[in-house]
């Protein structure tokens, strides 16, 4: 309890509040731009936060993460183009409302649902983190090593269509993380003679390359962020005057508060899916949407501009962001790409994330979790004030947007060490990310591997020393056995999933194959 209070005192220092507001506005902006995710912004922000305190930089990133969820609902509602993956289900009822001329009200509902989903989940997580911290004390080196592998496998299994490719991507990340001097013997490993690779793993060029440059390489192939099909009839893509915006905001709160069961159910689902690494916002908001439809008195109205659909989707969306922070801060396993970048930020500030984080930096953890509560509350007034500029932003032409972001990538890469080697490295990782994505390899597990690699290596070496070189050390404790069982379950789920996909493909091929005439 003392730590929680100290955490809030730390959070309410004026500098941290400024970082929080700046992060929230940036989150709105990033979320409103389809093709950009909060991870892109967090990766570009990472080097620029080096001058801040560790809690300041993570608070800013957490605000970007949470803000982008509401920002993503604006183009989803007005243009049927989800700005972030977590807003996909919002478009299903938000866009029909916009077509009926109620776009402002739909945004008002999305904003209040985001706020309430965020507040409910933040309160639950603040209460949950202390008991979880006690559980994390059971984690020694063998458990930490197994947990890192499990986290990467889970994230690898969820991102992309192929479990194999997800795991390969995660393992490649671990291999890239060991392209440095060995922390135990000081020998160089695949550094190609570059002195720049002798120190800590260069997170920033890798993150900027994979999340910034790769995304721009895909975006430059499009003429515009908006597609022809996504533009509503003229005059419908606006939210009216200032008075109308405020009226819609108040109405949005009223509509949302009239659905307490939907709110609680969607918050719970969002949190649960957020806590499971890799599941994240996309799964959470579709799950909440389908459950809201299932238990609705008027399920036939879903998809035609029903407010219950927007409330369910947006509540779960923000609740899942907060849920993601639980494994990230409690055990050092990031549940999403943005959470992985937050861990990288801690690393760059000299803090090792992992099960001991709550023990060593409990006050900071509470400050970060508290910031999620404050961000959720601030979404309501700030989101209302910035509604009109966000809509204008969605219409930014690609030819101005892509070069501007690339210049930011360039500056961000050079900002850490000031060496142009990092810029070339970022460009190389841009190509690697592009090639991997084109070939169907997800890049998020790779980034996770790069960030968790040093933790995994230290844990493996220590475990082998503890066990005198015997692998039985990885089965010596009940916690290890639980993690190994989770591995078996994951492998089983992956296998069944793969067999089901193969069967579905065969049936589809059979149906679509040309029939010989009798």
């Amino acid at each position: 309890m003392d730590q929680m209070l100290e955490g809030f005192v730390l959070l309410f220092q004026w500098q941290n509040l400024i970082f929080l507001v700046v992060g929230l506005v940036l989150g709105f902006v990033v979320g409103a731009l389809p093709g950009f995710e909060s991870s892109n912004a967090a990766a570009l922000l990472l080097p620029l936060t080096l001058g801040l305190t560790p809690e300041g930089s993570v608070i800013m990133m957490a605000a970007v993460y949470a803000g982008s969820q509401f920002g993503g609902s604006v183009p989803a509602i007005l243009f049927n183009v989800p700005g972030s993956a977590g807003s996909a289900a919002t478009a299903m009822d938000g866009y029909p409302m916009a077509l009926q001329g109620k776009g402002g009200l739909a945004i008002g509902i999305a904003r209040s649902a985001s706020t309430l989903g965020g507040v409910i989940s933040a309160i639950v997580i603040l209460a949950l983190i202390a008991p979880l911290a006690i559980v994390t004390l059971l984690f020694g080196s063998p458990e930490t090593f197994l947990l890192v592998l499990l986290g990467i496998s889970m994230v690898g299994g969820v991102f992309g269509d192929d479990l194999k490719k997800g795991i390969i991507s995660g393992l490649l990340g671990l291999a890239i993380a060991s392209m440095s001097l060995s922390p135990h013997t000081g020998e160089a490993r695949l550094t190609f003679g570059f002195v720049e690779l002798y120190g800590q793993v260069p997170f920033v060029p890798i993150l900027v390359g994979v999340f910034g440059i790769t995304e721009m390489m895909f975006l430059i192939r499009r003429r515009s962020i908006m597609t022809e099909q996504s533009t509503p009839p003229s005059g419908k893509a606006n939210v009216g005057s200032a008075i109308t915006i405020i009226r819609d905001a108040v109405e949005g709160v009223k509509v949302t508060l009239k659905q307490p069961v939907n709110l609680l159910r969607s918050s719970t689902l969002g949190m649960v899916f957020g806590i499971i690494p890799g599941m994240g916002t996309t799964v959470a908001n579709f799950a909440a949407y389908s459950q809201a439809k299932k238990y609705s008195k008027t399920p036939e109205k879903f998809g035609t501009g029903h407010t219950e659909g927007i409330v369910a989707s947006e509540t779960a969306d923000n609740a899942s962001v907060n849920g993601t922070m639980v494994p990230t801060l409690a055990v050092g396993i990031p549940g999403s790409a943005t959470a992985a970048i937050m861990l990288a930020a801690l690393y760059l500030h000299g803090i090792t994330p992992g099960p001991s984080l709550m023990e060593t930096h409990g006050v900071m953890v509470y400050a970060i979790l508290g910031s999620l509560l404050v961000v959720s509350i601030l979404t309501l007034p700030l989101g209302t004030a910035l509604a009109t500029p966000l809509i204008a932003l969605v219409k930014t032409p690609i030819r101005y947007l892509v070069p501007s972001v690339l210049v930011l990538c360039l500056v961000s890469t050079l900002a850490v060490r000031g060496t142009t080697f990092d810029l070339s490295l970022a460009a190389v990782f841009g190509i690697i990310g592009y090639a991997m994505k084109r070939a169907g390899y997800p890049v998020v597990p790779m980034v996770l591997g790069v960030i968790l690699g040093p933790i995994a290596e230290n844990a493996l070496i220590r475990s082998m020393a503890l066990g005198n070189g015997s692998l039985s050390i990885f089965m010596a404790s009940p916690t290890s056995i639980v993690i190994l069982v989770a591995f078996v379950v994951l492998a089983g789920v992956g296998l069944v999933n793969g067999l089901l996909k193969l069967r579905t493909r065969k049936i589809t091929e059979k149906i679509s194959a040309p029939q010989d005439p009798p």
Partner: protein
Amino acid sequence: MEQKQSESPVATGGRAQRLIEIFVTLGLLTYVGYFLFSIQGLRSQARMFPNVVLIVCGALLVLTLATAVWQAFRRTSEVSDAPPASEQLTSVSRSLLIPVVLIAGAFAIDALGFYLALPLVAAALFWLAGCRPWWLPLALALPVTGIVWLIFDQLVGVTLPR
């Protein structure tokens, strides 16, 4: 019927995607193999972790490669909604020019200094993104450089190369 399908651009797009998968998987396998080979002379503590990771990764890559090769060369009615190969090639080359410009930018910064090289890199990126006529990228690059100087040098105080 089958012949017609294999000649259509749609079918070519599906086969092209498989070939990309094979090419990238082979590239990753080469990296893993070379890394594994290069660390064998190191002491056991230095190579233990990469060894474990690379062997598992290599095995999975071989499996993925075999699957991709089998899928690419078997007779199939699988169709893809990918654009025609010629169109893909044009857009890919535009995308690949971005890292080329950035690497050239790294050399330019070393040779000319940051604030002389940045407008050139920015102009090249604006041109690549489709800003026309020719003077527009240059006209945009100058204020962009000014904004970078103002925000990062003056306000944030980031140390950028001179």
